[in-house]
């Protein structure tokens, strides 16, 4: 990996509030049910765990390149961005408003999935968020997901991402259902060595997801790049109908037929026609995009 340029401002390292401040037009953000309302989790006390006044998610409205949007940002530094009852309900309420207002939504994902201390409430919240997302998309609302957070986008969070109309990812973004540690704990280190960071990137990292068409845009780990990516993603169609889902079915079946017996990310990339697949993790963004735009499987709005 090349060292970041001095002008770069890492999205990965930023807090959820910091990311929102850089994403939106200056001074345009209004928060709903912010920390001053003290709507925190009622369940963490049982486990003697500290709460956070916004329950690890910021929801509100603002402008992005002049265009009004609803926004939600998960804070990966609070309980790994995990989704509990209040956290989840804030996002559900925002998406229901989006449907009524026909207002596009941008979600800044940073989550390990369900918060185990309130697992049932969190699991159900994810199901409600998914339904609210799809109902909003049925009204033509775009739901854009940004994937570049510290905690990645795992578990039920990755299923919500899979329901978005467009996804933007950085190299550091990780998108998968079972995380490396979960696979290792359940299936053994032979199946997945969670300490092998290179394996993690090759299996669920941003470059692999972009190459197989699992996401739509690949950007630098930089706040300005994510802003530009979000603006571009908001230009993509939000249509969710029989034709789109039939196309997604065909797209995912084609992926399995083409790569389903590949043992590693590098083998998938070789089959895509990438000349030096082992070198892909070392490419900087512009070199990677030069190759990837020619060789990748596109998502073709079939999402």
């Amino acid at each position, binding site marked *: 990996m090349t060292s970041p340029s001095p002008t770069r401002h890492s999205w990965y390292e930023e807090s959820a509030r910091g990311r929102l401040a850089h994403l939106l037009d200056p001074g345009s953000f209004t928060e709903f049910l912010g920390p001053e309302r003290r709507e925190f989790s009622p369940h963490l006390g049982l486990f003697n765990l500290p709460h956070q006044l916004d329950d690890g998610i910021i929801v509100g409205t603002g402008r992005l390149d002049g265009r009004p949007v609803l926004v939600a940002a998960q804070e990966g530094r609070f309980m790994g961005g995990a989704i509990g009852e*209040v956290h989840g309900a804030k996002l559900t309420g925002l998406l229901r408003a989006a449907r009524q207002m026909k207002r596009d939504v941008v979600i800044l994902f940073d989550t390990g999935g369900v918060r185990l201390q309130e697992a*049932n409430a969190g699991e159900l919240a994810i199901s409600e968020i998914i339904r609210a997302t799809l109902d909003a998309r049925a009204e033509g609302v775009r739901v854009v997901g940004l994937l570049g957070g510290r905690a990645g986008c795992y578990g039920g969070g990755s299923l919500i991402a899979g329901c978005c109309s467009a996804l933007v990812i950085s190299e550091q973004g990780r998108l998968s259902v079972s995380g490396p540690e979960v696979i290792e704990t359940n299936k053994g280190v032979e199946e997945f060595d969670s300490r092998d960071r290179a394996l993690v990137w090759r299996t669920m990292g941003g470059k692999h997801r972009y190459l197989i068409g699992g996401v739509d845009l690949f950007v630098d780990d930089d706040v300005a790049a994510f802003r530009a990516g979000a603006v571009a993603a908001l230009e993509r169609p939000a249509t969710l109908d029989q034709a789109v889902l039939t196309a997604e079915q065909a797209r995912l079946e084609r992926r399995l037929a083409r790569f*389903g017996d590949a043992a590693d990310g590098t083998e998938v990339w070789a089959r895509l026609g990438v000349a030096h697949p082992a070198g892909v993790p070392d490419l900087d963004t512009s070199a990677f995009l030069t190759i990837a735009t020619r060789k990748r499987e596109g998502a073709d709005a079939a999402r």
Partner: protein
Amino acid sequence: MRPANILSSLFPAGHDVTEAGGLLGGSGRLDPQTPVDVVGISGKTYPGVDEALALAGRILSIADRPDAAPLLFLVDSGSQRMSRRDELMGLSETLAHLAKALWRAEQAGHRTIGLLYGGSAAGAFIATALACGSLVALPGAWPEVMDLPSMARVTKLSLDVLTEKAAGTPVFAPGLDNLFATGAIAEIWDPDQPLCDQLKALLATTRDDDGRAGWGLERGGRVKAAAIAREVQRLALAHG
């Protein structure tokens, strides 16, 4: 109840539902006028990319038909299959696609009813049973997000402590009663009464917007979610 008994109680006039590779497919008739499509996942199968896509494909073909036959989704699964290959191939996309297929069938006029008769967990639960328009269960069903021993490992609490805490709240521990209390499940059916009558009664009700947070409040298992979602929605609309 086992799938064979469930299917004969649901469809006394017969059915052609078959099982292959842990997946169920076919159809039955509640009465001569009411055909029902059946899909399912059985035998505690852990759905991976292959199973999720096969199920989604069947559901999308049903959604594409002009009729409005209800779709029954029988569920006895594990969690999502945990493997390097499944994640390499994009399991999050395929499970989300399965949830979207169920949503699409409902949009296209087919009531989607999940019938949880065994296990289900984690991402598999979200993409199957919980993605149906209505979810019912049979006693003995065992939904869970994560089992208590695994939860003990992650939370670094002893199993005894977790078990003791679980007695006081339905919010985190596995099991049908806990999931029912949080509002995940509309009804628990009586296995001693004909299931066809209970399905007919459910189909006679109209399904409106997602009311699961309201049930969680009524049943005392998830008391904040409904009000929080409503308040955020109100603030967003008021801001304009």
